[in-house]
């Protein structure tokens, strides 16, 4: 590993890219061949950009019955003694497909299921790992956030996904991270870090020291417009600090993994502009309704812009009007 540490982030990134195509695993649908069989994902691809690092890229879409809520990036890290899962998907069905993908790769037990934050597309697969009896790990505020948001999230999931939501459940963390923590997988150590309110008030990042892979959850959006459900100034502050992490490769919560910190630039630009535009609107004494019309953002450059941009403006306005 010593040799790899000396390489530039870009060289590492290129190296990962070459490797990823050869490592795709596909699960065949059972549901489509046997009527009455449990629902299953038609296919569930996992890429292997570095030894022991596996990433499943969710669709860049809203959660719908035909995608089973498979819209967030998920993955796992394999050590000599333990597997750590990082996010579990938007439904039990997705979580189970992820678990099957792990079993195809390694017999090593799943000791940890890490949630990068409270949003439904990242946590509802937790229940699929119950039989592994892992530690469920999250931000110190994750338990409270799950308690108060959980019932609503579940109601919305059942409403929007129907039977694709079956067996999905809120599974609370059993271990909380207040600042930082290390998880030893056997010859491989993951560094966990909890952040002050940014994308949400439950953001947690995971860094694999060996491969220099940084899992950012929804602190990083690539392609998909960034979403603000926390604190805009906190989000931008977290990004400034994350930039200094000596990572080679960044796995976003949505969109393709890219070299670090180059991956960050578009998101930082979008959020910086959102901040500047909303602050200017408030200074000009515009109302929220007027600001929603006037702050156009960067439509056309982002996926799902129409679904989230105006919501981001609303959240930013409600936060920033208390500033001056």
């Amino acid at each position, binding site marked *: 590993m010593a040799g790899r540490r000396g390489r530039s982030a870009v060289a590492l990134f290129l190296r990962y890219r070459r490797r990823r195509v050869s490592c795709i695993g596909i699960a065949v649908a059972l549901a489509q061949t046997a009527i009455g069989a449990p629902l299953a994902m038609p296919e569930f691809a996992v890429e292997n950009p570095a030894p022991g690092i596996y990433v499943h890229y969710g669709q860049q879409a809203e959660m719908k019955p035909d995608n089973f809520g498979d819209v967030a990036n998920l993955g796992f890290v394999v050590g000599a003694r333990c597997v750590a899962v990082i996010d579990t998907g938007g439904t039990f069905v997705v979580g189970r497909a992820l678990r099957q993908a792990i079993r195809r790769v390694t017999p090593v037990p799943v000791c940890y299921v890490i949630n990068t934050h409270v949003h439904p597309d990242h946590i509802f697969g937790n229940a699929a790992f119950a039989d592994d009896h892992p530690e469920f790990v999250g931000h110190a505020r994750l338990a*409270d956030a799950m308690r*108060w948001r959980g019932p609503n999230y579940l109601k919305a999931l059942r409403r929007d996904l129907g039977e694709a939501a079956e067996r999905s459940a809120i599974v*609370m963390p059993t271990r909380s991270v207040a600042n930082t923590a290390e998880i030893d997988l056997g010859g491989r150590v993951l560094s966990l870090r909890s952040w002050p309110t940014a994308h*949400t008030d439950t953001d947690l990042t995971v860094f694999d020291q060996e491969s220099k892979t940084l899992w950012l959850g929804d602190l990083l959006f690539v392609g998909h417009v960034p979403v603000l459900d926390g604190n805009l100034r906190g989000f931008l502050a977290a990004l400034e600090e994350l930039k200094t992490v000596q990572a080679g490769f960044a796995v976003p919560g949505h969109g393709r993994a890219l070299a670090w910190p180059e991956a960050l630039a578009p998101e930082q630009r979008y959020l910086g502009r959102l901040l500047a535009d909303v602050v200017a609107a408030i200074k000009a004494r515009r109302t929220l309704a007027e600001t929603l019309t006037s702050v156009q953002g960067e439509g056309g450059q982002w996926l799902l812009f129409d679904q989230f941009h105006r919501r981001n403006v609303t959240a930013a306005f409600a936060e920033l009007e208390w500033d001056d």
Partner: protein
Amino acid sequence: MDFRFIVALVALVFAAGGTARAQETGPADSAVWKKVHASVFGSAELEAADAVIVLDTPKRAEDAAIVPLAIRARFPQAKDRYIERIWLIIDNNPSPIAAVFNFTLESGRADIETRVRIEEYTYVRAVALTNDGKLYIAANYVKASGGCSAPAGKDAIAARANLGKMRLRVSDGVESGRPAIAQLMISHPNDSGLAMDQVTRSYATPHFVRSVEVRYGGKLVMNADVDFSISENPNFRFYFVPNGEGELQAKVVDNEELEFTARMKLDSARLGLASTPR
């Protein structure tokens, strides 16, 4: 209308059941609205509000917990014709009467802007009572859901720390005797108590602002009975007429009888008045 009446109405609406939405076709058909109409307005006729008020809402709300909404009067408050009261009604919210605003001649204009929570796709209505005793209604359909039962806040700990902080703002270029825009911001979770705890299956304790009163130079400008249909950190924009130097005062009381106040002095300089000649 006092607070107990609103509570009674909540109970009434719960009893009516939440199935109204499926059968609705037009604004007049909502079962909730029929009950609210009967209990608040009796058999009174409500005319279309086109010439009296405009209700401005988004068709689809980005965030159901913060839906911006404005009610604008079509004429200024004048002795011979003015708006006394406006009811804001959100049919499919757990407590459909979101707010009752009272205005005076000192209001200058009976305009109000605020932000509301919306629990299900619903008609939102504004009913205006003019000084001649007539009632006028405007209704818009708004697509938004989950706003009331969502837990308050994107940062619950910060919200608790700031409880009761208030801001009063007056627009620049205020002139004595002319209606000016003021904004009242209240840092308050305005908790509906409708978010359920996943672990204990119990509900949060409701904690919300129930009344707001604004005076200028001691005279009433606007008061309102409100509830948790108003968004977290309640926010109101309204007009008042600064007749000479004075102090704008806001008093807010919540359902735990906590009282919060804010004041803002408007002196001659701010009002563009000559400083002393008398």
